[in-house]
């Protein structure tokens, strides 16, 4: 076998192996998107109920609560970044990180210090490579988020929010994550979580409408104290679920195009190897014919 031919065969084989892997990953992601979407849908009633309740309190009572009132000055902002644990998902993680960098620039322009909370191995690697510090990170399980993780994250950021600036606390919390729009569109999105920006879900009451008088048990402050962490949790959990669904969709898309590319490569190399084989055969034939020719002329001369 000619050297050229052997090289092409090798390339075809390697493209075929790669294709097998990318194809398997594509199928796995495709089957997991559905589940991830179902989980998003299943958690929606909870977050809707929590959001309604929070906006009800915020709209219908005029209590001063640290979580709802905008602080006079904001010196430090926390940014929670949701990326994936694994790569091979196209621009999934880098889109979020880019968005986070933009947000960082914006916040720094406003004279705020920025601290980071990272979710997903990719963001940790990004920060580690650039030797940048972060407060806390959560890795593992980005493709199948658990509510307990969301609770941990929420506890950490709310604790930081409730700490004074002087003691290392933050005055503002932003989430940066991918929002799942469709199988082919996932958009990185920044949400300011705290202080609350009110809030989708409840239509603002018209001025003429009489506000219903809410009764709070035990009292307004305690209800808000209990409610707002729940709200933060549910927003974070929702962001994680959205991010997981987006991750699967992004990976499916990336792996689909990788499989297509492998197909194209295999086709090209097969063409090239056929041509190489054919030219080898042609050469051999002409050698044989030439040789036979030479022999017969040599025979005639005897």
């Amino acid at each position: 076998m000619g050297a050229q031919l052997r090289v092409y065969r090798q390339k075809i084989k390697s493209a075929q192996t790669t294709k097998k892997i990318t194809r398997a990953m594509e199928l796995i992601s495709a089957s997991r998107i559905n589940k991830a979407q179902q989980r998003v849908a299943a958690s929606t009633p909870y977050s809707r109920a929590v959001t309604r309740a929070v906006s009800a309190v915020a709209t219908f009572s005029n209590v001063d609560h640290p979580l709802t009132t905008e602080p006079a000055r904001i010196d430090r902002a926390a940014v929670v970044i949701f990326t994936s644990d694994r790569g091979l998902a196209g621009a999934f993680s880098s889109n979020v990180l880019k968005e986070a960098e933009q947000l960082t620039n914006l916040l720094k322009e406003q004279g705020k210090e920025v601290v980071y909370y990272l979710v997903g191995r990719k963001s940790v690697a990004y920060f580690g490579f650039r030797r940048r510090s972060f407060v806390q990170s959560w890795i593992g399980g980005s493709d199948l988020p658990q509510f307990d993780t969301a609770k941990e994250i929420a506890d950490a950021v709310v604790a930081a929010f409730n700490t004074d600036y002087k003691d290392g606390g933050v005055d503002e919390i932003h989430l940066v994550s991918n929002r799942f729009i469709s199988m082919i569109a996932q958009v990185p999105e920044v949400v300011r979580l705290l202080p609350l920006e009110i809030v989708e879900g409840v239509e603002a009451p018209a001025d003429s409408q009489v506000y219903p008088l809410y009764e709070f048990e035990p009292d307004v402050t305690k209800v808000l104290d209990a409610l707002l962490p729940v709200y933060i949790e549910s927003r974070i959990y929702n962001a994680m679920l959205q991010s997981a669904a987006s991750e699967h969709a992004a990976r499916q898309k990336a792996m689909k195009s990788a499989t297509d590319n492998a197909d194209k490569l295999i086709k090209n190399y097969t063409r090239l190897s056929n041509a190489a084989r054919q030219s080898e055969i042609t050469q051999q034939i002409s050698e044989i014919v030439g040789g036979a020719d030479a022999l017969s002329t040599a025979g005639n001369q005897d």
Partner: protein
Amino acid sequence: MATLRVELVAADQAVWTGEAKMVVAKTVEGEIGLLPGHEPMLAILGAGEVRITLEDGNVIKANAEDGFLSVENNVVAVVARHAALI
């Protein structure tokens, strides 16, 4: 007669939704019974049983803890981190 629209939701799923005659739940202050026409209310849920009496008199029971209860316009939402029907 007006009925209550009840939504019992846990963090990861909706546990039960439907129409009901009466809801009894446990808040941190004690048990509370809700009938149609109740004033708007937000309460912190204590750990315990939620009993939902349907229009035909059947009772649905569920465990709910770690959450809150909201009443507004005859819509009762029992929202708990952990909730399950018994």
